């Protein structure tokens, strides 16, 4: 096709202009893409992690922090509560499952969670290989934790104090007795051991106190979760938080930031479109003679229209494609750069169908910007232009 060879020649003639426009567009598209992937993946992740937990009970403190630490393993715990209290809760009529958990240690980036089979059943995990821990200092690994650490059944390892690794190493060694089936949720990334292991590694005082960090509760009905929450918050020194409620509040906080980013991405895409428009318009002024020449050589009106529109569309296409790729790379880089992001399960290698909308917006912006100059070229009166000096 005639238009294609002219477009390619123009791009070859001005590679820097072409690259700049594509780059501008790519930045906007990359931001929009990374933002979309981030919010989509984190929402799915949070929903999956919180599945099955109706209520979290812990020591006095921020309910959001309690949910973040006990459910998502993403924040420091609020404090401890006596194991006795936790056990009493478990006998309440409204409770289906109450799983006490103890936090405080980690092996590398993987948190060691003191818990029994009730935690596994809340999370929907089963022992895939080996057996569940029975004695103190035995441990089962979540599927992702097993893959990342390379530990196998029978291997021994030492936990460290603190939640992100790097703390003091406890002398006692854990023995791996089993590996859990993958669930796609937070339990994949942790190491589960009996609560007694944590008590024994933290010295005589801890051993005597027999404390737990939080209790994850599944109630028999949603209404039961609310009434239990009300009672605990009103009558005890404890805090009961519903993950669904806390997530909704968190979402409002995060959404404002996301909106600002999104607006910025839109502004970038529009700036890129404007630059395509200005370039094509000035090219049109410089190349009126060329357009008239093409027509004089027998190119149709639609051919010269296609030259300008196609040039804008091609720029937009490359910019959008680069932007989509860059968005994925950006998120993947983020997941490598931050332990939290990786733990959160963010990945650049997942496609979201809504990216097609972003692609459409990117290419559409370029085509729209090229439309005006293309129509002007279409309407050019050749005999008048030919009379002008080239």
């Amino acid at each position: 096709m005639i238009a294609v060879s002219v477009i390619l020649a123009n791009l070859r003639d001005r590679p820097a202009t072409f690259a700049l426009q594509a780059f501008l567009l790519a930045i906007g598209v990359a931001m929009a893409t990374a933002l979309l992937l981030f919010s989509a993946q984190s929402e799915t992740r949070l929903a999956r992690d919180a599945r099955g937990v109706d209520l979290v009970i812990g020591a006095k403190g921020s309910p959001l922090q309690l949910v973040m630490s006990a459910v998502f393993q993403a924040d420091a715990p609020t404090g401890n509560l006596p194991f006795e209290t936790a056990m009493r809760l478990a006998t309440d009529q409204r409770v289906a499952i109450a799983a006490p958990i103890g936090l405080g240690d980690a092996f590398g980036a993987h948190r060691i969670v003191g818990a029994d089979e009730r935690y596994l059943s809340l999370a929907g995990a089963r022992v895939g290989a080996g057996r569940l821990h029975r004695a103190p200092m035995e441990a089962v690994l979540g599927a992702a934790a097993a893959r990342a650490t390379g530990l196998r059944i029978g291997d021994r390892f030492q936990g460290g104090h603190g939640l992100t690794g790097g703390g003091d190493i406890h002398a006692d060694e854990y023995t791996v007795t089993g590996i859990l089936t993958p669930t796609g949720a937070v339990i994949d990334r942790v190491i589960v051991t009996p609560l007694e292991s944590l008590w024994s590694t933290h010295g005589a005082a801890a051993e005597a106190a027999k404390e737990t960090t939080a209790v994850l509760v599944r109630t028999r009905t949603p209404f039961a979760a609310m009434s239990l929450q009300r009672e605990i918050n009103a009558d005890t020194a404890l805090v009961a938080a519903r993950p669904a409620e806390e997530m909704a509040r968190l979402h409002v906080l995060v959404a404002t930031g996301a909106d600002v980013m999104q607006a910025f991405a839109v502004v970038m895409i529009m700036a890129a479109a404007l630059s395509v428009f200005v370039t094509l318009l000035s090219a049109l002024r410089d190349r009126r003679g060329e357009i008239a020449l093409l027509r004089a050589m027998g190119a149709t009106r639609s051919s010269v229209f296609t030259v300008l529109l196609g040039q804008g569309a091609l720029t937009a296409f490359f910019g959008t494609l680069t932007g989509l790729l860059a968005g994925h790379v950006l998120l993947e880089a983020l997941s490598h750069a931050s332990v939290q992001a990786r733990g959160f399960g963010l990945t650049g290698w997942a496609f979201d169908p809504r990216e097609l909308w972003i692609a459409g917006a990117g290419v559409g912006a370029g085509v729209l910007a090229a439309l005006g100059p293309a129509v002007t070229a279409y309407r050019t009166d050749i005999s008048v232009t030919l009379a002008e000096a080239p």
Partner: protein
Amino acid sequence: MIDVENLRVRRGGREVLSLQGWRLATGEAALLTGPSGAGKSTLLNAIAGLLSPTQGRVCVDGADLASMNEATRDRFRAEHIGIVFQSARFIRAMTVEENLALALRLARKPDDLEHILSTLARLGVADMGKRRPHTLSVGEAQRVAIARAVIAQPKLILADEPTSALDDANAGGAMDILFTEARACGATLLVASHDARLHSRFQTRLDLAAS
């Protein structure tokens, strides 16, 4: 080849061309003279189908241009008419070879590189194929422009002031080439010019101021 009847062209409420009747037989060469503003370029544009007359008829090779739709007229122009402009016009981003190939493709002919190179060689600009048009001298550029006009072997060659930007040597050379090429492909040649150097070279002349 060219048959003009009762032609009138008005532009912006002003009559820019009026021509009762004129014919040019196939294979002939004619010079179109007249002062600036007499309508030389307008007549060439009308014959090329680049503008629509207000009144009257222009037939090229028996075909009434006004009766065609625009796309057909564009195609007719690409296949049968070669145009040489006063100052050479090219697609700046393309090499000389590519500019010539474009003309061939527009005429729906194979863009055969050998044909392009032999045409350039015949016109004395053999080594210019890979050059960009704006790097050529005025004389070279006009030769390449002629090469582009004749490369698809048109039935009609129109030239608008082809020599006015050239010195005597280049002007003479360009005219020699135009005549030779027109003869070689059996094309009719119509040159519009107020360049007095050309008068002696044409037997047929149409003076627009006089008509």
